[in-house]
């Protein structure tokens, strides 16, 4: 697999009331195309910060981030927004659907930032929504009329409607109970099977199991890495056991 994202000596620190907090300390990391990379680590280890730096949502304090061979760490806000529009899709923990629009419009807003409105686009939106289990009767509803799981699945459709090269996800099952969590993870696994590169941050083992490569972070540095074959539902027990050992080793 070839590299799709690379960081060189990446540093990210926040100054809060004069105290410099170094969250990421000159990290070198490569993300491969087609991989379902999972970033794990205890809370405060800097995993979300890393995700935002990789995805161009936030600029690094020091060091460089390359997308393919294009250096994105030097871009200004508007250029970053354009970069994100072309190449990235986002799924957030608290979903952030626009409360004043119904499900369908929420997705169209995301799409229309990139593509022009067209019947094909409308069909694709409908098809994707059906695929993630959101039926026709739900399309005119508003976010606060949907369950957490349903909202998140709408969030995923919004994120992939522009078929981004990379799909970023920050604790997607964070606010969901286990059953709706499973539905959301199934969608991710299905996307990954069809070749979508995914970078996901989580602190929950059930989510990490779906990944093909797990990176463990502690206090801003990578402490270890663990590769797994692509996710098949059957050999779950073996897969869980090997992941558990890796995590123990990492002092999780």
């Amino acid at each position, binding site marked *: 697999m070839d590299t799709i994202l690379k960081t060189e000596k990446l540093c990210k620190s926040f100054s809060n009331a*004069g105290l410099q*907090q170094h969250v990421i300390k000159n990290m070198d990391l490569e993300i491969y195309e087609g991989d379902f990379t999972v970033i794990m680590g205890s*809370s*405060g280890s800097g995993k979300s910060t890393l995700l935002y730096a990789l995805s161009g949502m936030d600029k690094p304090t020091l060091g460089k981030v390359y997308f393919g061979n294009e250096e994105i760490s030097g871009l200004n806000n508007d250029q970053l927004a354009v970069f994100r529009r072309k190449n990235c899709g986002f799924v957030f923990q608290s979903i952030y659907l626009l409360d004043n629009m119904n499900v369908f419009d929420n997705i169209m807003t995301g799409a229309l930032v990139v593509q022009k409105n067209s019947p094909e686009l409308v069909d694709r939106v409908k098809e994707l929504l059906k695929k993630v289990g959101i039926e026709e009767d739900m399309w005119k509803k508003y976010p606060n*009329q949907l369950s*957490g799981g349903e909202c998140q699945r709408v969030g995923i459709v919004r994120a992939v409607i522009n078929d981004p090269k990379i799909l970023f996800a920050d604790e997607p099952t964070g606010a969901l109970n*286990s059953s709706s969590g499973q539905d959301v993870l199934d969608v991710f696994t299905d996307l990954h099977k069809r070749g979508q590169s995914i970078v996901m941050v989580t*602190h929950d083992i059930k989510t990490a199991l779906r990944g093909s490569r797990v990176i463990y972070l502690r206090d801003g540095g990578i402490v270890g890495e663990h590769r797994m074959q692509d996710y098949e539902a059957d050999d779950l027990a073996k897969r869980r056991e090997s992941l558990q050992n890796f995590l123990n080793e990492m002092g999780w």
Partner: protein
Amino acid sequence: MSILVAENLTKHYGQDDTLVKALDGVSLSVERGEFVSIIGTSGSGKSTLLHMLGGLDTPTSGTVIIDDKDISKLKGDELCIFRRRKIGFIFQSFNLVPSISVYDNIILPIQLDGKQVDKDFVSNVIETLGLQSKLNVLPSKLSGGQQQRVAIARALASKPAIILADEPTGNLDSKTSQDVLGLLKTTGKKFNQTMVMITHNDEIAQMADRTIRIEDGRIK
């Protein structure tokens, strides 16, 4: 002699197709002076449980009895005053009043109740939490760890019947988290303070005297 008894607590959101059972018949009790941690993955209903126990939200059914008082019967300002006297809160995002100094934050609940500030007790708490040099500074000038220590001091200062901590180390890096947890444990002992802490990390849960596990709104 338990200081907190919750019986058959349930909390449902939305109706029919969007019905979410955040809490589904939870019962637990905490002894006086005990340090209990409630552990569960996010979305397991632990925050909702804490909000019920702390009278921040009213349960769909079931009762919460703190210090022999059934708080699910209290309403509005009466509940507010009960909270002010009987419950100390520690939040993941600290929730200090940004406009007043650290010391004012600590003694605010006492002042709200019009009580005289027990000077030596409060200075002892401040000493234990290493905040002597930060008293007349605005919270925004402190680091995350320091702000959480102020929140702990505020909770301890009003000598509540029980302290409820919601993911106290959620926003802190591992080193500061260890400090904060250590302080919670030692001050609990030192001031005979009953404490309930919720977390999703069992290494943190291990710091408590007793651990309760919650999964999808039910005690395992």
